[in-house]
């Protein structure tokens, strides 16, 4: 079993090395440098550093992969970068202090959380118009749109709630109380489950989407690390549905969770203050942004090992990958 996996990974490696005229890359937002690092996913080298607006945090790709949206928090705008030229082509009216956002499957509506104003702003990415502003809890942060496009879910860090927004009416329909300081939400691919992290609470809640009820609450414990340091932020679900990865902030570890039994399988050591993550396009690697150590760790998803850590800018925050 192990040997066949080894041979397969060798083959895959050889194929990857042979067939990559257009190198797949990762874009990483560096909060303190006001830049994006472009990381080549074959050579694992930073190939370019691009200046963007002030304090870039959340970043997201358009559905066709041609544009990159960047929350320039201190510039109070969402920037649009054309990935063919890697130039900023537009600034969207995002409302004040945009931090995280999510793009609707229609590739037009962008749901942006405005941390200082307790609002979610909905912007049309084609007309650049603000479609709606929805009042939510205090300090909105995490943002996700369900795969079927019906729900936009926002987390508010101080109110400790998940806010369910109907994307048809842009009305706040329901709230789900979770543990302290919810930071991030992630839908399962079939849209039936929602994973929500609580940074201060130290937990991850798994929410049944139809009933909007918590069906499981995960806690974490790492030998030798004080429980206060275990602060879950980013959550990513592997495409094969086997694992959930939870970034544990200043605990400097990523928890590997069995996505079906909810059992924590392992804790992987990465850089300092790990927050957000992204899979490579082939799903074989998971990249983590480590803010304090200023690097990106690369986790091999097959054998659940951290393979390397690569220096990027200061305080890397968000990460996306393109084929």
């Amino acid at each position, binding site marked *: 079993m192990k040997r066949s996996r080894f041979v397969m990974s060798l083959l895959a490696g050889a194929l990857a090395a042979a067939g990559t005229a257009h190198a797949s890359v990762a874009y990483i937002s560096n909060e303190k440098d006001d830049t994006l690092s472009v990381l080549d996913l074959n050579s694992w080298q930073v190939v370019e550093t691009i200046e963007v607006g002030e304090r870039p945090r959340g970043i997201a790709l358009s559905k066709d992969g041609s544009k990159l949206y960047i929350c320039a928090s201190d510039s109070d705008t969402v920037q649009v970068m054309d990935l063919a030229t890697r130039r900023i082509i537009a600034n969207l009216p995002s409302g004040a202090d945009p931090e995280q956002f999510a793009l609707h499957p229609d590739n037009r509506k962008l749901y942006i959380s405005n941390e200082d104003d307790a609002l979610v702003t909905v912007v049309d990415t084609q007309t650049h118009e603000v479609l709606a502003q929805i009042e939510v809890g205090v300090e909105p942060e995490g943002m996700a749109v369900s795969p079927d496009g019906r729900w936009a879910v926002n987390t508010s860090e101080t109110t400790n709630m998940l806010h369910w927004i109907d994307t048809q009416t842009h009305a706040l329909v329901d709230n789900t109380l979770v543990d302290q300081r919810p930071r991030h939400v992630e839908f399962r691919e079939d849209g039936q489950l929602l994973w929500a992290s609580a940074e201060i609470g130290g937990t991850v809640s798994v929410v049944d989407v139809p009933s909007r009820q918590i069906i499981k609450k995960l806690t974490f414990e790492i030998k*030798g690390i004080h429980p206060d340091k275990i602060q879950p932020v980013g959550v990513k679900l592997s495409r094969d549905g086997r694992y959930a990865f939870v970034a544990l902030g200043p605990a*400097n570890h990523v928890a590997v969770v069995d996505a079906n039994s909810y059992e924590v399988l392992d804790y992987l*050591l*990465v850089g300092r203050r790990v927050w957000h993550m992204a899979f490579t396009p082939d799903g074989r690697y998971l990249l983590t942004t480590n803010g304090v*150590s200023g690097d990106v760790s*690369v986790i091999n998803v097959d054998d659940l*090992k951290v393979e*390397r850590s690569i220096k990027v800018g200061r305080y890397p925050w968000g990460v996306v990958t393109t084929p």
Partner: protein
Amino acid sequence: MNLNTCLYAFNGVVKREFWRFIQQRSRFLSALVRPLLWLVVFAAGFRAALGVAIIPPYQTYITYETYIAPGLCCMILLFNGMQSSLSMVYDREMGSMKVLLMSPVPRSWLLVSKLLAIALISILQVYAFLGLAWLAGVEPPLWGLVTVLPALVLVALLLGAIGLFLSARIRQLENFAGVMNFVIFPMFFLSSALYPLWKMRESSEWLYWVCQYNPFTHAVELVRFALYQQLNLPALAITLGCTVLFTLLAILSFNPERTVRAAPARG
């Protein structure tokens, strides 16, 4: 001296060392328990003490256990090299050494055979340790377990040669305690086995340089890099150079003229 006689002598020395090893099972156990204690107990206590930084050959963040494992492999080689030097003192006192040294085979060959025998046994123990360390979560690449072998052989020869050289200078068994205090401990602690040298430099510049001039530091680094399938050329050059030097010194110390001249002085 023909090849057959040489092989016969080599065979004899290696076999004798193996029998001694098998008979002294407690020695085998203690050789394993010592580094395991460090790995499990010491590393647990010091886990947080090590600064977070990536240093070659590692490509990402590592646990303290992972950091000290190569140093502990070398610790096994160090203690074995020195313990075998103790056995030389013992042999000389008990007379079995005289029998060996009286054989018509060149002494240099006997000593090299002895060095290789010590190395073989030490390396068996290192692999046993690496197997147990794997269970404790120290998982170097599998091929690294192969590439580390030549490094282990060279380091075992180096430490065995230092041990032999010292044993020629020790006249009495009790002096081995002195070897522990003045050779083993300083060599081990003033090296990169337990802490990276940049960490040492933060607290003391001169200690850092002492560590830099300690051949054991380079032996540890050679093994550390080899375990991760990399070659540390400066470490290889220094380890190789020191091995040749100390082997020559050991052979010179066991020079028959010297021992004959030294003999009346003892009586």
